[in-house]
């Protein structure tokens, strides 16, 4: 069971998003970086599948040289191989990203002389939320795909992928090799182990330089929405705030 997982490096935004002066980029000078929770779960799912059935997990990212950090984190929780598609550009859109990832996978599969049984993606990237790279890669490679999956079983040459939509459970049965995009909640990712961290340090990360192709969707500017910044009316400190809080609940019609 060989799995490939795609992850994307994004800033770990906390209480407030700050933009650079050009209003086209986030000010990340004080921020750490991570991947989407959906993608953390995709890595965990891949590792669990390889633990249950044998096989390997390869993680792939398209991003700056520093994105090697996100690949090493994946290795520290159980992935085996890593490939960085290194670029200094931050304007790869969904089509250019799809092309770069598709070519890289074709290259890896030619080398191994067999397709990965499963390609895992996040349902959507944390930052751009384009909701499409996994589906586009599946089409480019001619493989079946299911999105937003919260429960996955693989065996007997097929994947049974489930999710719930508006109260109805949906089951997709995909012949392998297949593509699945997952959502947080499919599993509870583990934390890195000490041996995992050691392995991550030593693992050689393969690097390729993808070619950029311009596309039709062009970002012009970013803005933080103007939700009025208010200051909360302080009802009180500690238990002394309970009577005014009860009054408020009555006023809001929550209690009688």
């Amino acid at each position, binding site marked *: 069971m060989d799995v490939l997982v795609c992850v994307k490096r994004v800033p770990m*935004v906390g209480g407030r*998003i700050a933009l650079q002066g050009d209003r086209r980029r986030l000010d990340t000078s004080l921020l750490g970086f991570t991947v989407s*929770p959906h993608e953390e779960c995709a890595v965990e799912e891949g590792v669990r599948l390889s633990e249950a059935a044998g096989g390997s997990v390869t993680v792939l990212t398209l991003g700056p040289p520093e994105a090697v950090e996100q690949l090493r984190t994946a290795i520290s929780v159980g992935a085996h191989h890593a490939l960085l598609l290194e670029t200094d550009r931050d304007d790869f859109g969904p089509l250019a990203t799809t092309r770069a990832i598709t070519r890289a996978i074709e290259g890896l599969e030619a080398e191994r002389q067999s397709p990965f049984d499963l390609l895992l993606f996040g349902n959507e990237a944390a930052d751009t939320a384009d909701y499409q790279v996994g589906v586009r890669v599946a089409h480019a490679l001619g493989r079946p795909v299911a999105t937003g999956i919260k429960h996955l079983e693989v065996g007997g040459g097929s994947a049974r992928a489930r999710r719930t*939509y508006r109260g109805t459970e949906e*089951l997709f049965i995909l012949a392998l090799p297949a593509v699945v995009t997952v959502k947080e909640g499919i599993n509870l990712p583990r934390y890195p182990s000490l041996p995992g961290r050691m392995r991550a340090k030593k693992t050689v990360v393969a690097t390729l330089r993808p070619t950029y192709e311009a596309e039709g969707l062009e970002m*012009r*500017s970013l803005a*933080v929405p103007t939700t009025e910044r208010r*200051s909360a009316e302080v009802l009180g400190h500690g238990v002394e705030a309970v009577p005014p809080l009860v009054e408020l*609940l009555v006023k809001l019609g929550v209690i009688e």
Partner: protein
Amino acid sequence: MSTVVCYVETENGAVLDASLRALTFARGLAAEATEVSALIAGPPGADVTAQLQSFGVTSICVLSAGGLTGYAPLALAKALAAMASRSEAAAVVAAATDHGNEVLAHLGALTGLELAANCTKAHLVEGERRFRLVRQRWGGSLIEEAVLSAATGLFSVAADSVQPVPSPAAGSLAVSEIAPQLDALDLALQALESPEESPGISLASAKVVVSGGRGVGGPEGFAVIEELAALLGGAVGVSRVVTSLGWRPHREQVGQTGTRVAPDLYLACGISGAVQHLAGCQSSKHMVAVNTDPSAPIMSRADYAVIGSVAEVLPALVDAIRARRSSC
């Protein structure tokens, strides 16, 4: 005259509210008169037809494909592709639901067309094959202005930010069937449906949500959160830290990668107010924060605050509500 094709979702014999908003968005795409064609998955009842007509739809195509029993994203995408090419559509639109985004991603992949997801506004630049658009990133915590150059633009519509407005000029309506050419691979992707077990008060539609974060201190701390939620007829919500630590299940998580809620009252207990958490609760009518830190980011989003420890304030609040009820 330009044509826009819209994928419309229905449930229990009515059009989804999100799809009505997508139709409103579709009508507003061009300055000139816009003809809106709708694709729906099964035969429309009288109510669906009437709703679509009042939202300015002039033709309905019903997906008909032998062997399909459930939602089939690829079959829907193929039908949209056929409708769009037949009418030389300026755009194809769907609500940014899990289904809408998925169908449009397939359509984009089939046709090579670009898809702008989670749009709140879009407008065709007159005389050009170019759209100006506004869309959400980071679950709505960031707004992007962009330009999309495409023969046919694909848009999913962030439904919360578009009001559903019936068309003032609702006209006649034609209904036809569309049967896209399917192959075995498409049918393999068809969904089987089965009812879910009943989950109690659903978090997504609860009128009151009592949410706990890291400040609750541990899994035991949620007993009082549950008690309070039950007293207020509400649901329990949590932050991601709480699910990552395994204190509570992910289905209770509120936020960008959890559930979006829009209750009358959101009570945030021991939650700092990270943008990804707020992405899931910023449509709440009233927000109250209980936090030991008066400078936590949640304080600039909440309407009311109690500065204090969850462990002290919540048990006292539960007692006070109980006392009030027994004295009435």
